[in-house]
């Protein structure tokens, strides 16, 4: 037997509220609910001997996963291993708006790569924000990773160029580039990012955002993707908000893989992202 239209509307309304309450952007929630509606309309439930509620929940879960099925769960270490087999140093650019955890995440990735036996250098290409260079330097000290830096106010592209040159001459495997946080509404900064991207020619461009974002995630995603190519994402502060709906907003809008979730402020607080795990988490 099929679900009644009334029942489907009720399920969809509840799903919409559930998604929005977890901060999935309104437009993204609406799009997801439309897809789920189509699946529910085709759902056939046996009349007897089954847990109807369970079948419906499973249909909803699968429908949401279907919306993001073309986005792979990437094994980051496998990915960088493959890139490194092609060329060295591998240049990874970290970018994103203010305060979401780029610098801390770079340190975490540096920690991960060093533990895997690679050599790493940091490029302090945030030459703007107070204390940015010292912050990265302290991470470098703690991790035993060299930091290539210039002075505050220097051209970020020049820092990157120097870091890559240093890595090439010393045979270092990875260059992790820290950039200044920038608001997507600041055209000058977004143009600067475009220039940095062109000069750095990164092997990977990683967008860093936090799990606390509300509907603004949609605007951020749309604008950033207009200026630079994003290969993958890292979403931080998931420990503060495990159901962070912005994760789904970014997946649906950017359609790029999420490599990791940041789950704390220590170097080891980084977990690989798995779509199924997250959707189960979101749907409770």
């Amino acid at each position, binding site marked *: 037997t099929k679900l009644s239209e009334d029942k489907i509307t009720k399920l969809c309304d509840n799903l919409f509220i559930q998604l929005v309450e977890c901060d999935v952007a309104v437009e993204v929630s609406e799009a997801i609910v439309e897809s789920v509606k189509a699946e529910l309309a085709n759902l056939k439930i046996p009349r007897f001997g089954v847990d109807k509620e369970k079948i419906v929940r499973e249909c909803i879960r699968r429908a949401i996963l279907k919306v993001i099925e073309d986005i792979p769960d990437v094994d980051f270490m496998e990915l960088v291993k493959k890139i490194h087999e092609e060329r060295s140093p591998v240049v990874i650019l970290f970018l994103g708006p*203010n305060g979401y955890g780029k610098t801390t995440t770079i340190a975490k990735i540096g920690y991960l790569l060093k533990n895997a036996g690679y050599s790493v250098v940091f490029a302090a290409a945030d030459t703007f924000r107070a204390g940015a260079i010292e*912050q990265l330097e*302290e991470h470098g000290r703690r991790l035993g990773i060299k930091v290539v830096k210039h002075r505050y106010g220097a051209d970020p592209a020049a820092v990157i160029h120097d870091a890559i040159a240093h890595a090439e001459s010393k045979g270092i495997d990875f260059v992790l580039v820290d950039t200044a*946080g920038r*608001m997507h509404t600041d055209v000058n900064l977004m143009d600067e990012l475009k220039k940095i991207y062109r000069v750095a020619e990164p092997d990977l461009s990683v967008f860093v955002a936090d799990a606390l974002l509300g509907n603004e995630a949609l605007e951020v995603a749309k604008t950033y993707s207009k200026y630079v190519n994003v290969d993958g994402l890292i979403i931080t502060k998931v420990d*503060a908000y495990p159901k962070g709906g912005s994760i789904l907003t970014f997946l649906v809008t950017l359609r790029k893989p999420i490599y990791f979730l940041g789950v704390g402020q220590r170097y080891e607080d980084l977990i690989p992202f798995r779509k199924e795990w997250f959707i189960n988490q979101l749907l409770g």
Partner: protein
Amino acid sequence: NLIESFSKIVSRIKGLVYIDDETLREILKEIQRALLKADVSVEVVYNLTKNIEKRFKESKIPQGVSPKDYLLYVIYNEMVNILGGDTPPPVEIAKRPYKLMLVGIEGCGKTTSAAKLAYFYTRKRLKVGLVQTDIHRPGAREQLRQLAERIGAPFYGDPGHHDPIKIAQEGLEKMLREGVDLIIIDTAGRHKSEQELMEEIKRLYDVVKPDEVMLVIDATSGKQAAAQAEAFMRYVPINSIFITKMDSTARGGGALMSVIKTGARIKFIGTGEDVEEIEVFNPRRFVSRLLG
């Protein structure tokens, strides 16, 4: 409240037309969507529209105004009132010396806002000192020290021991000796699941005894802002709010929810990364932006 402001407006206007049920429902749906996109919580949105629907069924609105604009105006006024109405927030520093402590989630903009507040009050002819008690984040001391230098404000930070309480005490002593009028105490970012950090902020509060605790909220955060504000309140009082990153396109519903949860007034907003990019909060402008 919502009902009162509505009837006040109605009594002042001549000429009324009916809104039928269907039109009302359509308009409310539109308004709901706008509020949800502004990060206002589902509960508040649905209660608000339920109240309006109940009240406005078969009622009259003024002629010459579209029903939607009229209902938006009612909601606008209600929200402005929640945010403190037309009286500007009290930003004068009443007593000297005055201790102001900033708290908030990681990365929301506390350190930058501490410097902005120092800039703001320095321009009002106060002697403002900055104290960095954050020993967790690498470079935190240096970040605030550089900002303090930029403004010309006295600064105190971790001289090497790793106890925020000790730093705060020594910082306060130094600032009081230097005859500082306003002492701004920056703290490490923290969220409600970081139990030890939440207990630390309570201990810091008990020792510092600040005259005011200002919660710093990132305008781009969604509904977690209110949940986190509520959690902070269980450890320290929240007297005022500073909303950062208003130069984004975020509509600030999360901040509005935090006001409702804490009962604290929004005093300032941050509109950029520079120390001068601070404004005294204006409820009317904030609400028109929220309502899109």
